[in-house]
């Protein structure tokens, strides 16, 4: 589904990604872990198409197409979803209104008719239960004045509505208490199918207790320095990132 080969990216003149290789198949959950500043969020942003980052080398193939050739909207319409680490507040735009526009754009791209108001509301009701989000929150301006937990739940709610093929969760666990974390993780798990894939970007192992990954990759200094199964996450939790850094630095020298 997603094949990343030797991906290099920089912001302004600073190299952030220095040769990422990753292969994601339908139905899989990949966790990307790593210390702060290792490039995790950059990877998520590059995949979603943020223009601040310049890809200098390498390729990303998504469902047989060149992902880097598509703009952010085309990527979204092709089924990529980024759950933001810091969801943006947009005054004056209600979640409901904006989601209806977004969903119908994606449906149009897929050759489907736009959803009528009744079907849209029905679908909304179903998905709202999934992340235990309240109707009143969705009538309000998008993320404006939402608590951290509400913003993250709103991200997962949008993901549920848009039904992406590849979801990228960028530090969705940051700033969440354990109850909110459970709700968010539960939502993600219920959305898992054999057709779609999830990339979970996180600093901590805690989230992975709830969203159990098939593969864990450790990102350090712009490269994936270690890959393994979910046991790797537990090992990281126990030992911290220092041993990874030491091994990686030793290897570079």
């Amino acid at each position, binding site marked *: 589904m997603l094949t990343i080969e030797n991906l290099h990216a920089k912001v302004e003149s600073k190299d952030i990604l220095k040769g990422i290789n990753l292969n994601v198949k339908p139905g899989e959950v990949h966790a990307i872990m790593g210390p702060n500043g290792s490039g995790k969020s950059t990877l998520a942003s590059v995949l*979603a*198409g*943020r*223009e601040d980052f310049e890809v200098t080398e390498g390729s990303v193939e998504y469902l047989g197409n060149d992902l880097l050739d598509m*703009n*952010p*909207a085309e*990527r*979204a*319409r092709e089924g*990529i*979803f*980024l759950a*933001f680490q810091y*969801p*943006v507040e*947009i*005054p*004056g*735009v209600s979640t409901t209104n*904006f*989601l209806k*526009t*977004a*969903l119908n*754009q*994606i449906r149009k*791209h897929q050759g489907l008719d736009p959803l009528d108001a009744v079907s849209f509301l029905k679908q909304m009701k179903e998905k709202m239960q999934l992340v235990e989000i309240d109707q009143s929150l969705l009538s309000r*301006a998008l993320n404006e004045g939402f608590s951290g937990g509400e913003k993250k739940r709103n991200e997962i709610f*949008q993901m549920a509505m*848009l039904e992406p093929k590849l979801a990228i969760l960028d530090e969705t666990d940051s700033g969440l208490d354990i109850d909110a974390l459970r709700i968010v993780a539960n939502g993600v798990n219920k959305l898992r199918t054999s057709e779609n894939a999830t990339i979970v970007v996180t600093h901590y192992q805690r989230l992975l207790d709830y969203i159990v990954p098939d593969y864990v990759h450790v990102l350090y200094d712009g490269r994936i320095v270690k890959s393994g199964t979910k046991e790797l996450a537990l090992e990281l939790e126990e030992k911290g990132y220092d041993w990874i850094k030491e091994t990686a630095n030793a290897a570079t020298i």
Partner: protein
Amino acid sequence: MSQIIISKQHQTAIEEAFLQQADLFQKTSHSTSPYVQKVRREAFANLEKLGLPGNKNEEYKYTRITRALNKHFAPENIKPAYAENAIGISQLILSGIEANILVFVNGKFSQQHSNMVSPPQEIIISTLSEAFESHTNLIERYYGKYADSKTDAFTALNTAVAEDGIFIYVPQGKVVSAPVLIYFITDTTEEKTVSQPRNLYIIEENSQVDLVESFHTVGEQEGYHNIVSEIVVNKQAVVNYHKIEIEGKDTYHTGNTHVVQTAESLFNAVTVSVSGGMIRNNLNLVIDAENCESHMYGLYMLDQETLVDNHTMVDHRKANSFSNELYKGIMDDKSKGVFNGKVYVRPDAQKTNAFQSNKNILLTDDASIDTKPQLEIWADDVKCSHGATTGQIDAEQLFYLQTRGLDKRQATALLLKAFASDVLQNIRIQPLREVLEKIISQRLQKDL
């Protein structure tokens, strides 16, 4: 009249023409009441003293209206043009609403296009010229008392020459259910034209009314509106005032709205400018009693080479009142916005809450905004704030919407509509709000 002209230096042809027009008018119109004649004479004297604002006038330094008028209007153009044949007027008028419709074409009241639905015991609506004759007590008590011709030349000019407009009187304790929509249409099909309507709205104690002044253009030639409205908001009255400008690209506009509020009254103003050549709006609000509340909203959504200049003034003279002001601008192409907001809090106006905010989005490198908030506070126990922001569309917001499948154009339109909605949502006349939202949506579809 020639003595007047010789005594002035650097006088423009247009100023000379207006002075001659006013002078002639003083000498020939003897039919109206002595009071009105006196008001006109004083205004004429003020106009002579002030002259039209020149390039060095601080209040008009970004809006060279005198220069523009001088360039585009010859002395023979400054009268109202013939417009009996005006076509395309009915489509300018809001439909699907029970409202009092009053139409002026080139300053002349058009009975044919007007329609009054409210009963006379609820609201008295007449032309100002009729009111000069039939409501002399009210005219002598209120007319020309709030519009200050000592400091603003365009107010002086209007007061000196205005013959007609709308007179509204809402008696005590009446809630006028149907809004009053007043259309001022410039028809330049035959020739260039200048019209100077004058309005007086008196809202008595504990009454409520929705007023709309809407400006439009028919024809391709240059037109100019110099309008003055006085609004008297008496005790516990509620007035929702709207000024809508959807004019042609060769029309010029100077407008002065003077409002006085007395105790426990509520005044809301929404000014929306969508198109025109050069527009200057002065909105002056005097809060002359305690426990008043005032909201002033403005939206200017400009393209091409339109210039819109909003000058607002709030004068808190007494304690315990609240004023809030929010003006927003979206400037495209080579358009230009100007905002100047003065707030005065007088020594007696303790416990005043006064807030002001001006926010702008520039869509091109050629668009511009000059914004100047001015707070002058003499009282020491008040809560006041002001702020102005100017920027482009927020890149983070744009990216966020794009990652949900909206292309750049759709995302931009959505963000700009949201930006404008802060102002538009304060228009409580739903069909009016919808028409403006539609115009703005079409503009966004076209331009982006």
